[in-house]
């Protein structure tokens, strides 16, 4: 019977210092890169070269280095805004996994505004109108689920998930239906194909030398600061924290929980919708699948950062470097494609979560002396 003693115990750590935690995360990333290196080597790719290209995102030695930065920003901004918006909902323990759908709806309504009004309004007004339409479109799409939850206690996880597909096919209907009324499509093309937005509906860029700074980057960074303040210092942020922690307590403290849920989810979904609007406006053309999976990746970023606003900023930079860098680096190797980025991302996430476990718990081997007893 004595031999049945287990080999080790899982013991909760008393205190984990932030420095220790950071070290564990770094170790996890290094380990993930090592796993990736093995996979690369198997496919005959020199891992160090690949990683160097990945981290520098192909900027040095490029004929158009600024172009790479501009493209990086186009990937980075939607991810940052969506992650921030999701953190609002998650902090309230509202499992909004409908980022994809809200993003698409934001993009769609921004597209409607852009196509119909793009010729008649000046560019600043037009871009603002698109952002607002997108925010409204995404917000209404999200608040619908929140209202059902508040009213009848429906499950928001299922509803937001399913509405993702509704939004996706809704947009595809417009992408693939060639008809006179469909103002989205290019009238010159015989096959259904999205038309470019009018010039005034294109995102504003601020030229700095050869580099064009995308205005949406500034918007995203300002949002980051605003949300940090909103969550940490305002009464509404406080309400979100209490509702998330214990709805019963919130009710007991006299808060109107339903109202808070609806308000916060509207805000969250509206920001996601706005991210969709900024994205299509930056791209200059609608797309049948505009999201680049930010609705999903945003969830990962938000949790990696433990819903900490500054952490989200950092995590979304890292994830974008990984995605964009992998994309550019893999373009120089025929055996590697962008899917490798997803694979590497998965390995990193898995190991970071494992590291998280080890910063909170430790395994203690049974000492030999004890086992011998």
């Amino acid at each position, binding site marked *: 019977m004595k031999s049945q003693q287990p080999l080790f115990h899982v013991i909760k750590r008393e205190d984990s210092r932030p420095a220790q935690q950071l070290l564990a995360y770094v170790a996890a990333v290094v380990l993930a890169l090592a796993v990736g290196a093995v996979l690369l080597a198997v496919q005959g790719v020199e891992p160090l070269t690949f990683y160097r290209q990945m981290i520098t995102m192909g900027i040095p030695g490029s004929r158009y280095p600024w172009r790479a930065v501009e493209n990086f920003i186009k990937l980075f901004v939607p991810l940052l805004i969506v992650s921030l918006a999701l953190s609002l909902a998650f902090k309230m323990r509202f499992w909004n996994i409908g980022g994809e759908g809200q993003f698409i709806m934001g993009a769609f309504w921004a597209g409607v505004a852009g196509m119909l009004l793009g010729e008649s309004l000046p560019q600043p007004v037009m871009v603002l109108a698109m952002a607002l339409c997108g925010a409204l479109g995404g917000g209404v799409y999200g608040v619908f689920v929140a209202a059902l939850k508040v009213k009848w206690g429906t499950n928001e996880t299922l509803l937001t998930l399913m509405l993702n597909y509704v939004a996706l096919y809704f947009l595809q209907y417009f992408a693939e239906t060639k008809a006179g009324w469909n103002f989205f499509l290019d009238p010159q093309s015989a096959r259904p194909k999205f038309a470019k937005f009018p010039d005034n509906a294109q995102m504003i860029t601020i030229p700095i030398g050869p580099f064009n700074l995308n205005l949406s980057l500034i918007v995203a960074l300002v949002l980051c600061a605003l949300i940090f303040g909103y969550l940490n210092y305002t009464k509404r*942020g406080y309400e979100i924290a209490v509702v998330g922690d214990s709805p019963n307590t919130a009710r*007991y403290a006299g808060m109107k929980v339903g109202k808070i849920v609806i308000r916060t989810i509207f805000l969250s979904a509206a920001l996601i919708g706005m991210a969709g609007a900024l994205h299509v406006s930056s791209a200059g053309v609608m797309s049948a699948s505009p999201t680049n999976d930010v609705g999903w990746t945003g969830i990962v970023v938000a949790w990696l950062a433990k819903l900490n606003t500054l952490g989200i900023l950092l995590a979304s930079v890292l994830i974008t470097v990984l995605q964009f860098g992998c994309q550019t680096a893999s373009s120089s190797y025929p055996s590697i494609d962008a899917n490798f980025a997803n694979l590497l991302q998965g390995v990193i996430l898995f190991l970071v979560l494992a590291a998280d476990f080890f910063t909170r718990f430790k395994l203690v081997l049974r000492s030999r002396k004890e086992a011998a007893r």
Partner: protein
Amino acid sequence: MEQQYAIEMRGICKSFGSVAANKDINLTVKPGEILALLGENGSGKTTLMNMLSGIYKPDSGMILVDGREVAINSPEDAKKLGIGMVHQHFKLVDVFSAADNIWLGDDKSGPVLKKDRFQVIGDMAKRFGFDIDPRKKVYNMAVSEKQTLEIVKVLYYGAQIIILDEPTAVLTVQETAKLFDVLRRMKESGHAIIIITHKLNEVLEISDRVAILRKGEYITTVDTATTDEQQLTEYMVGRKVKLNIDRPVVEKTRPLLEIRDLTIKNDEGALAIDKVNFYIRGGEILGVAGIAGCGQKELCEAIAGLRPIESGMMIHKGDNIVGLSPKAILEKGISMSFIPEDRLGMGLAPSMSITDNMLLKKYDQAKGPFVDRKTGREEAKQVVQDLEIVTPSTETPVRRLSGGNVQKVLLGREIKAGPNVIVTAYPVRGLDINSSYAIYDILNRQKKDGVGILFVGEDLDVMMDLCDKIMVLCHGRVMGVVHAHKTSKEELGLMMTGALDLTNKYEDKPAGIAKDSRIEEVEE
């Protein structure tokens, strides 16, 4: 010494992280003996017993069953060794019948629900003298029936050593007496019994020996016949403690809160409170006694405005507060603190700091869009100091604090708000003697300041010492309001089960209605 111990634990140690829950503990029980395991909260009683029942494994030390050293790695092993534990929170499947709950965990019964299972289990229960209906579904059972079922279950699995974790916490006086009869019968049939409790009178009544733990350390084991409450308390707390609860006499004012013909439904739509009348004066503590589920929770929630009422009036200082929002009721100075079973469910946000929890009811009063944490921090510091809350800092999340400190934070905030009526339910739930007395002191100080207090409690001894009057509820109806110093536990127990109804004892004056009520003025 000639007799073999049923259980012997030698030098048991167990740590969680750097916290030593059990340090070098020795414990012995003989067959046919009842051992009481006594200790304050967090003294490691439950941890120790969980090692016997296979939920935890000791870091070091050894366990002997019938003189043989054993390793208990799982509840399965414990069952094979004849050790059965009745947990504080019952582990039963609500939608199953009594027999099925037993059948479910039986290795020998096989995968098929045989038709004779009701017969087999019914016979077995009768043999031990239990009164249970094997076909009854658990969700239809009263708490005491569920407990009986748990005991039958461990006996059916052939347990010779039975551990009961605070079995009387949920029972009325009469039910406790019945349980003790059962335990005595089991003892006569040669079972070894370990009973965890922190009620001293029960220890003295039922046990043969008492083992005492303090802060994870083994203090001593004494024969029950040679000890008394005072000595046991000293062992348990480590110093002399005054065991009397004060009941200061305060001049009473007119009724602050008056409840008239109040009817409330519970979540299932059944009547939870049925035409209840009572009042609370300033400077008095009105106790509410009743077995679990007799409507106390719904009553508290209704007063705080958290639950709609069916009919009736709630008059606070002459104003009807029916239909007001929780916030408006708070602003009138009625504070409610309900400590639910899990302690953190209502009234506190567990992952937020003490500071943030202080702000819970007043965050809205600050000007502008921002939360005023500075004031919150100052108040938190004050409350921590005044109520001697043990915490690393005011920014520590509340869930990291121990039970007693959590409850002090909650009460501290409620009192800080300067209420004139305090509704408090189970404020000492699960607390040890020291913390409980600290809370009684806090309530008494409020009472002296002229606050009216509604005290929903579970320990009748405490209520009879602390409260001025006690209202007894049974199935949502008032069974009477009695003076705490004139009543007896037996009387209260009978009222709680509905066997005694004092509401019409004095025809001229229905219980629960004040003579000098201002209610008539209101109606005009």
